[in-house]
C-alpha cells in the first residue's frame, strides 16, 4: 500500500499553515454558537418539570462530558498512528489533546457535583459512572505527566501513546456504565433513540452547546499542535523563517 499522501498531509509546515487558517474560524464560530447556547439555555429554555432551574446545569455538564470521551478517543487514535507510522504530526496532536481533554473532564466532574448536590442530595457517590469518569481524568493526567517526564520528545510520545491506547478500554465503560450497572447517575439523554427524552425547546440550546464545544476544542487542539510542532521542529528552516517573520514584526511594534 502506498502511504505517500498520508505523509504529505502530515508534513509539519503544511499542517501548521492549514491549522493557522482553520483555527480562527473554528474559534469564532464556536464562541458565537456557545453564546447562543448559553443564552438560550439560561433564558429561553423553560424550567424542567421536576428539577426546575437546576436542570440548566445540563448545558455545561453534557457538552463537557461528551468531549471528555471524544477527545480521549482522538488522543488514543493519534497515539496509535504515531506508534505505527512514527508520524510527528500525530504525536503533536496526541500531546495537544491531553490538556484540553483533561480540562473538560474536570469540568464535567465539577459541574456534575454541583448538579448532584441539589438534585440527588450528594456531591459525590462511588457509582460506576462517576468512578469511571474520575479514572478518565487520571488517564489524561497520566499522559500529561508522562510526556513532561521525558526529555526526548519522541520517546515520551511513544510512552504516552501506549498509555493512551491502554486507557481506551475505559471509554466504553464510562459510556455504558449507566446501562451495565445500577448507578445513581441517569441514562443518556442525547444518545437515546425513540422516546423523546428532552423537549425541543430544551434540546436546541444543548445541541448548540455541544457543537460549540467541539469547535472550541478543535480550535484549542489545532493551536496547541501548532505550538508542539514549533518546539519539535525548532531547528528546521521553516520554523526559523517563521520566527524571524513573526518576531521581526513584534519587535517593530
Amino acid at each position, binding site marked *: 500500500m502506498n502511504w505517500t499522501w498520508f505523509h504529505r498531509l502530515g508534513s509539519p509546515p503544511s499542517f501548521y499553515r492549514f491549522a493557522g487558517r482553520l483555527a480562527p474560524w473554528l474559534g469564532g464560530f464556536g464562541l458565537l454558537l456557545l453564546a447562543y447556547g448559553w443564552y438560550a439555555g439560561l433564558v429561553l429554555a423553560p*424550567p424542567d418539570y421536576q428539577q426546575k432551574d437546576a436542570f440548566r446545569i445540563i448545558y455545561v455538564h453534557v457538552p463537557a462530558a461528551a468531549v471528555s470521551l471524544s477527545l480521549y478517543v482522538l488522543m488514543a487514535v493519534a497515539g496509535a498512528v504515531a506508534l505505527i507510522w512514527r508520524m510527528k504530526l500525530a504525536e503533536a496532536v496526541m500531546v495537544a489533546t491531553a490538556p484540553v481533554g483533561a480540562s473538560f473532564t474536570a469540568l464535567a466532574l465539577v459541574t456534575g457535583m454541583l448538579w448532584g448536590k441539589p438534585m440527588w442530595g450528594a456531591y459525590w457517590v462511588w457509582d*460506576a459512572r462517576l468512578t469511571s469518569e474520575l479514572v478518565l481524568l487520571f488517564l489524561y493526567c497520566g499522559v500529561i505527566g508522562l510526556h513532561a517526564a521525558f526529555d526526548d520528545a519522541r520517546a515520551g510520545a511513544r510512552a504516552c501513546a501506549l498509555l493512551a491506547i491502554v486507557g481506551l*478500554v475505559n471509554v466504553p465503560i464510562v459510556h455504558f456504565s449507566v446501562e451495565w450497572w445500577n448507578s445513581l447517575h441517569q441514562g443518556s439523554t442525547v444518545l437515546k433513540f425513540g422516546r423523546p*427524552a428532552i423537549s425541543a425547546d430544551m434540546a436546541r440550546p444543548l445541541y448548540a452547546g455541544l457543537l460549540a464545544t467541539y469547535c472550541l476544542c478543535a480550535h484549542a487542539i489545532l493551536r496547541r499542535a501548532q505550538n508542539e510542532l514549533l518546539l519539535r521542529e525548532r531547528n528546521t528552516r521553516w520554523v526559523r523563517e517563521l520566527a524571524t517573520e513573526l518576531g521581526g514584526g513584534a519587535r517593530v511594534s
Partner: protein
Amino acid sequence: MTKRQKRMAAVAALVAGLALAAVFGFTAFRKNMMYFYTPTDIVEHKVADNARLRLGGLVTVGSLKRGEGLNVEFMLADCEKSLPVRYDGILPDLFREGQGIVATGQMKDGVFVADEVLAKHDENYMPPELAKSLKTADGQHSCAPFKSVMQAAS
C-alpha cells in the same frame, strides 16, 4: 512483514488483548460494581439483618406516610417486588411518590431502615405543561433502571 506492518500488528494485538481482558473483568466484577440492590434481591434472596447496603427503587404511588417530625414510611418497588422503607431525616428536593431513590441502611424485621436517601432522577427533561399532558411522565417513572443484582450476576 515490514517494520511498519509489525508495529501495526503489535498495536492491534494490544487493543485485542485489552478488549478481551475487559470482557473477562466485566463478567467477573459486574456484581461488585452495582451501586445498589433492588427490592427483588432482598425479597427473593434474604440478606442478613444488620448488613448495611444500598437499596434502589421507585417510591410506590399512594404509599407515603409521614409520621412525627421528619419520620417517613413508604413502599419501594422495582419492576417485580416491593419492600417497606422507614427513614428519619432530610429528604432531597426531588423526593416524591413515583420518584426513583437510593436509600442506604439495613433490614430490620422485614423493614428497610434507612439513614440516607438520595434521589435518582431519569434522563427525561420537559417543561411542566408537557409533563402534565403526558401520563407516563409525572409521578410515573420507569422501573427499568433498577436492575436486580442477583439476576444480573447469574
